[in-house]
Every structure is written in structure tokens, then in C-alpha cells.
């Protein structure tokens, strides 16, 4: 981690001894939600976590939030795309903490951060009835599992409405929904004289009608509904808003986020309180506590909460409300009422704004996810292209080795002739003539190849180099990971459009990236940093840089870098940079290389801006 902190965001190579971080840098917290952003529970929890964490002033905090939205987009493929998206988006970002709000599969707290950010500590907040999988505890993550307080809610129902004889339980069909229903069924055993009906087979669209004619002595307990029997995804709070106003009997809920809908209340999970507890936990871990040593908290108690307006509607005497329960939405003095109104309005506005931003974000997220898929598809094409380049190289090396082999054999023969007492000068002359001929032939191979490159004339199109850079870096990323090299792309500004041939420019970039990787094989893992960056050049074009932290280039060799067959690699052909130069110059650009300070080499190329 110390290494990551020291190098991120810097173009230059780390000093030989990577230094620790400074406190002035903000701590970056990534919040991962399994549900969408427009889920009220999420909004409230997210706000509460942030608020709690910001109470602590030791660190400046920077928050990012991402939403898997598993209710609308389920399936492994979507998860993979999401994971890839998160991986790419936060690649090169310095994350200090992941706060996960996983569904019952805990993938957001386990599999995903473990794969993408293996060294970043994880704190999770899970609201469900399932046990924490062993694999999660093994990963050393900590967090809070909050259970629904079903016993507390049933107790509150009987306290407020002692005459209740029947509880209609409305629940959904997902695994998590069924787990909650199972808990309710379990608790119902201890409620003698009360009949429990489980409504899980009714489409949500039919429910408002069904609940409008329930007889007296009945109450509705709204369990969780992630999906109804038709497979349609819902949020429980949305359902509460649909049902509570229509119901002919009081509705009770399990989550604080469903309050305000017209429901009476329940021993609910208070999102503010849960968020605050999660925030405290997150602060402890951020402060350096080993999450492995912080036990996972399983909380079963809810906060009794009632809606004063609902009490009025159903004629429930306020004296029945337990002393420890919170009464919400009670009109107080005129001033208080106004204050409340203002606050409520503000909250509504805020929630609306958040929802709207959420929807907009979601759309752009989806667009980006789609782009990722497209990316992967083209990646395949690119791999073919790269291997075609490999085949080309192989063909060239075959073509070249023929004359080179002949030159070698001739030179060796000449050596033997010269060792004889009376060297046959005629023979040696013939040998030299042949050597010259083969040398010419080798030169022709190069010329032919260069003209081949030129003839496969450049397909110049306006293109955004930033996209090309990102795509190429992503392509090289698996290789970099395998070689334990930290490959980052740094784009600080919007780049002007250039005219270029995607395929050829990609080859140049790949070549520079692979060279950079090769140059760092002997460098300790913690210092293998390869940075691709680009900026607007002085002449209005683009200047791209590939900078490594390898051994650098010997000063006497800098001048020869772009010569064909010049190589510093044991198995190098010495063609990569020569070809790259041909390509870049054909674009009207320049390519050059040099050493970095304190270590490593950097290669630069420029491309003129598209003037059209």
C-alpha cells in the first residue's frame, strides 16, 4: 500500500526507497452499492455514512459511489461488466477504503474488491437475514450485518393494536426476500391467536386493490420485495407508498426508509443510525485498525418508530406508543411546523435532485458499461492484429536470416582461407563479392518491408487520441499485471483531435509499452511503474509519452535507437522503434526518446492536430 500511495498520480519514478504517504493527501473512499442509486435506503445510508465519517477531521475525505443495480441488471455477465468497469475506472486511483453495501451474496464485499483492490481494506454494511459466508470472514473484511427486527415489530403491532387477529405478510420472491419471510414465519409461531397470511403470489400491480378491502382486526406487515411474482423489481419503500394510502388496514414496515409513506411504523432499521455505525467502523479501519481484527457485528435490534399522522388516521392512542419509540411527522408549533415543512421540502428536493442525478449517472454508467463490452469485442480484433504483427515480424526475420546466414558462412569460410599458407585470393575476392550481394539483399528486405508499411497506406481518420490511449493501455493491462508492472494512463486535459490510422498508431503505442515493460524486468516489483500520458503540444497537436522506470538507455546508444536492427534486448530484432518511426513520420509527427530523471526512459511522439 505504501508503494501505491507514493507513486500514484506522479509521472516520475519513485526514488529507490519509496517514501510513506503524506497526510495532506485526501483519503479516497469508494462506496459500492448492490442496488441502484434511486433506492431511498441507499440514499439515506450513503448520506449517513458520509456524514459520520466527515465528523472526523484527521483526514480530508473524497467519496466515490458506484451502483451495481442488481435488481434491474442481474446475472453474471452484468456483474463482470460492472467489475471490469470499476476496475478500469479506478485503475490508478489511490483507494484507501471500500465501503460495500452488498446483497446477500456479498460479492461486492468479497469477490469484487478482492479481485480489483486486493490491498484496500473493506468495510461492509449488509441488511439481510443471511449468515455471512465463511469466505468473507476469511478475506479479512469487517462490517455490520443488520437483521430486520421482526420480533420487535410484531411486538409493536400488538402493543399499538392489541385486537389484531390476522397479519397479512406481503413479501417478494428473491432469495433474500424469502429469507426475510422465513424469519417472519419463524417469529409468527410465538404469536398465539394471530393468524398469519403470506401474500407472495400476487403481482404487485394487483396489491393496491387487494389491500383496500381487508377487514378490521387485520394488519399488513410489509416484508421485503425486491422482485414480485412476475419478476418485476421493486423497492420496499416504493411498495409502501403504493399500498399504505390504499390499504383499509394499518401497514407496518421493517425499514425506516419505508416510513412517511403512510405506514404506521415498526421496529425499523434506522438508515441514519446504521449509516452512522458503519461510518464509525469505516473510520476505525481508515485510522489504521486491521479489519481482520475488527469482528463483524451482527445487529438484530431495530429502532421503534411511528408516523404520528398514521396514528391519527387509524385512531391509535398515542399513549400506546412505547416510551423508547420515536414519533415522526408530529406537527408542533407553527414555527416548528414550518421548519419541518422547510426541512421536508428540502429533503424532497434533495432526494429528487439525488434521484435525478442518479438516473443521469446510471444512464451514463450504462453507456460506459456498453462501451466496455464494445471494447472487449474490439480487443479480440486487436489481439488478432497484434499477432498478425507477430507473424509479419516472423516472416521478416526469416527473410532476413537467409542473407545474414549466408554472410556469416562466407565470412567464416574467408577466415579459414586466410589461415592457409597461400590463401586463394581469388576465392576470397569472390567471397567478399557474395557478402556484398547478400548485404544488399538484406537491405532490400528492409526496404520492401518499409514500403509495404507505407503502401498499406495509412487510413487517416479524425480520432481522439485519449480513447486510443485508453484502449491500448487496457489491451496491455493483462500483460502488465502478469509481469507485476503498474501500468497507468494519465490524461489531464482534453486532447485535440488528430488525423491518424488507429491500427498503426496502436502498434506504435503497444511497441513503446512493451519496450517499457521489457526495460523493467530487472527492477524490484514495487518500482515497476509504466506511465502513458498525453498532453496538448505547443504547436496545437498532441504529444504522447510512454515513460518507464527501468534501467534507462546508455547515453552512447540514444542516438541509435531508431536505427533498424539496433537493439539492446537479448532477443530483440531492432525493428520495433524503426517501424514506429516510419509510422509516426508518415503521420507528419516526430518520435524521440531519452532518459528520465532519476531513472528510466521515456519515449515521446507528436501528432499534428486535425485542421479540418
Amino acid at each position, binding site marked *: 500500500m505504501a508503494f501505491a500511495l507514493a507513486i500514484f498520480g506522479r509521472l516520475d519514478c519513485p526514488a529507490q526507497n519509496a517514501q510513506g504517504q503524506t497526510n495532506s493527501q485526501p483519503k479516497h473512499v469508494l462506496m459500492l452499492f448492490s442496488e441502484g442509486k434511486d433506492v431511498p435506503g441507499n440514499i439515506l445510508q450513503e448520506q449517513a455514512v458520509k456524514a459520520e465519517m466527515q465528523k472526523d477531521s484527521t483526514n480530508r475525505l473524497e467519496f466515490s459511489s458506484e451502483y451495481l443495480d442488481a435488481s434491474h441488471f442481474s446475472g453474471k455477465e452484468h456483474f463482470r461488466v460492472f467489475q471490469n468497469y470499476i476496475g478500469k475506472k479506478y485503475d490508478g486511483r489511490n483507494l484507501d477504503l471500500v465501503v460495500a453495501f452488498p446483497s446477500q451474496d456479498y460479492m461486492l464485499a468479497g469477490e469484487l474488491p478482492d479481485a480489483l483492490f486486493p490491498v484496500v481494506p473493506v468495510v461492509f454494511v449488509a441488511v439481510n437475514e443471511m449468515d455471512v459466508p465463511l469466505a468473507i470472514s476469511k478475506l479479512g473484511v469487517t462490517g455490520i450485518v443488520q437483521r430486520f427486527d421482526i420480533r420487535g415489530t410484531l411486538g409493536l403491532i400488538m402493543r399499538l393494536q392489541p385486537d389484531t387477529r390476522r397479519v397479512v405478510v406481503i413479501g417478494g420472491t428473491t432469495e433474500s426476500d424469502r429469507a426475510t419471510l422465513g424469519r417472519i414465519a419463524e417469529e409468527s409461531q410465538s404469536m398465539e391467536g394471530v393468524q398469519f397470511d403470506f401474500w407472495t403470489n400476487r403481482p404487485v400491480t394487483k396489491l393496491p386493490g387487494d389491500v383496500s378491502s381487508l377487514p378490521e382486526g387485520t394488519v399488513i406487515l410489509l416484508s421485503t420485495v425486491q422482485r414480485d411474482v412476475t419478476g418485476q423489481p421493486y423497492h420496499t419503500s416504493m411498495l409502501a407508498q403504493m399500498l399504505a394510502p390504499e390499504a383499509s388496514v394499518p401497514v407496518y414496515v421493517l425499514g425506516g426508509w419505508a416510513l412517511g409513506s403512510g405506514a404506521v411504523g415498526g421496529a425499523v432499521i434506522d438508515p441514519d443510525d446504521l449509516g452512522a455505525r458503519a461510518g464509525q467502523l469505516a473510520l476505525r479501519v481508515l485510522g489504521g485498525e486491521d479489519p481482520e481484527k475488527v469482528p463483524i457485528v451482527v445487529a438484530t435490534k431495530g429502532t421503534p418508530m411511528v408516523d404520528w399522522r398514521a396514528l391519527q388516521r387509524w385512531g391509535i392512542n398515542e399513549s400506546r406508543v412505547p416510551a423508547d419509540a420515536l414519533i415522526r411527522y408530529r406537527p408542533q408549533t407553527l414555527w416548528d411546523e414550518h421548519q419541518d415543512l422547510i426541512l421536508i421540502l428540502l429533503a424532497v428536493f434533495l432526494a429528487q435532485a439525488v434521484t435525478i442525478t442518479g438516473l443521469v449517472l446510471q444512464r451514463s454508467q450504462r453507456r460506459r458499461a456498453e462501451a466496455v463490452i464494445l471494447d472487449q469485442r474490439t480487443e479480440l480484433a486487436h489481439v488478432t492484429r497484434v499477432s498478425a504483427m507477430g507473424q509479419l515480424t516472423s516472416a521478416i526475420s526469416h527473410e532476413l536470416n537467409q542473407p545474414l*546466414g549466408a554472410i*556469416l558462412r562466407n565470412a567464416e569460410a574467408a577466415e*579459414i582461407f586466410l589461415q592457409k599458407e597461400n590463401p586463394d585470393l581469388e576465392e576470397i575476392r569472390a567471397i567478399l563479392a557474395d557478402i556484398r550481394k547478400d548485404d544488399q539483399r538484406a537491405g532490400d528486405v528492409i526496404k520492401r518491408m518499409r514500403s509495404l508499411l507505407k503502401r498499406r497506406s495509412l487510413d487517416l481518420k479524425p480520432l481522439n487520441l485519449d480513447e486510443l490511449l485508453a484502449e491500448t493501455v487496457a489491451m496491455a493491462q493483462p500483460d502488465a499485471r502478469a509481469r507485476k508492472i503498474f501500468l497507468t494512463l494519465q490524461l489531464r486535459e482534453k486532447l485535440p483531435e488528430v488525423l491518424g490510422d488507429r491500427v498503426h498508431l496502436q502498434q506504435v503505442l503497444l511497441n513503446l509499452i512493451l519496450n517499457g515493460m521489457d526495460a523493467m524486468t530487472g527492477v524490484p516489483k514495487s518500482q515497476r511503474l509504466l506511465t502513458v500520458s498525453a498532453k496538448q503540444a505547443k504547436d496545437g497537436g498532441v504529444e504522447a509519452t510512454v515513460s518507464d522506470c527501468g534501467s534507462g538507455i546508455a547515453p552512447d546508444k540514444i542516438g541509435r535507437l531508431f536505427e533498424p536492427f539496433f537493439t539492446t534486448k537479448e532477443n530483440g530484432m531492432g525493428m520495433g522503434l524503426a517501424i514506429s518511426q516510419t509510422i509516426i513520420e508518415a503521420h507528419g509527427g516526430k518520435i524521440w526518446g531519452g532518459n528520465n530523471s532519476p531513472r528510466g526512459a521515456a519515449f515521446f511522439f507528436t501528432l499534428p492536430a486535425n485542421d479540418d
Partner: protein
Amino acid sequence: MNTPPESEIVFIVDDDESFLKSVSRLLRAAGYSVNAFGSAKKFLEQIAPGMSGCVLADLQMPGLNGLELQAALVKSASPMPVIFLSAQGDIPTTVKAMRGGAEDFLTKLDPKEKLLDAIRRALARGAREHKARGHLRTLRERFATLTPREMEVLEQVVSGHLNKQIADRLGINERTVKLHRTNLTRRLNVKSVAELTRLTEEAGMFRRGKTD
């Protein structure tokens, strides 16, 4: 040429004229007898029994390639060790070539020491195999001088039958059997039945699979 026929020759097969010329030149300078061919087909056409030496062949050639040349050579009148030369060695081809019995696998850019070393080894192996083949051939030639009847008698003798039994089996006079025996021992230049049996075995006569 100052090398007598039947001596060890390095046969070079390469479609690259320039390389063919240069490597021939080098090997001649190193003291070898060289016979160069521009294609595998031309070389195989020249193969005759009794040829001895080794083959230096390019792997990638138009027409018959190096591996196909090797396969044809194994079945030819004069199998010889093959050294492959490639402008670019890749592992799958190398493995295939070595499995096929290639003596060595070199790239065209390997130094001459490596090449000459490989040729020395191949020639040694070639000579050994050639000698063994020569011995066998002379042996077979000797057997080939026998008449069909003498061959029949020989087969009975090495199977351990007495003259009387042989006479019965072949339906001829016992005296005639004796005559055939004397003739065949003289022609094969052997003194005893034991020696006769050993020679017959060496020459691979009357092996299993031959009809009784």
C-alpha cells in the same frame, strides 16, 4: 576431386542459392566433400545405394520441405543422418524434426563451430550405419548366389534337421542333399553349421513371417 568416390560426403539441400553456395564454400574450406542441391527432389533423385555421409537440409523449402525430405530419406537406398538448418527455429518444428530422427537442429545464424561439430557427429553416425549396412549387403549378396534348391536345403539345415530328414521332406535323394550342403557351405565360405546359423541370422534370412 581429390576425394575418392564412396567416401563421406556432406549433401547440402537448400533452396536459397546464396546460402547454399556460402555453406558449401565453408564446408569445403573445412575439408569436407560437398554435394549441393537446390531442392529435395533433385537430391532424392541422385540417391543411390552405397552412398555415405550426412545431409544438411533447410527446413523451409518450396516443394518437399526438410521434414518430408527426411521421411523420404529414411525409406531410401541410403539412409543418412540429417541435420536441419532453419532460418528461424521454432519449438514445434524442432521437436518434430528431432522425433523423426534428425541428428541436429541448427539455425542459419549459429556459429560455424556448432555447425562443424554437428557435421562431425552426423558423419560418424552415418559411417557407423553405413558400415553396418555394407556388412549386411555383402552378406546378402553372398546368400543371393545360392540356387533356390540350395536355399531350401539351407533353411532345413539351420532348423536343425538331419540330412535324411531333409531328403524326406524335400523328396530328394540323401546324396543330393549332401551335394547341396557342400556347395552352399563353399559359396558362403563357412566351416561349421554353427557359423552357418550365425550368418543366416545376421543376414536376417528365414525370419518370422516367411512362409514355411
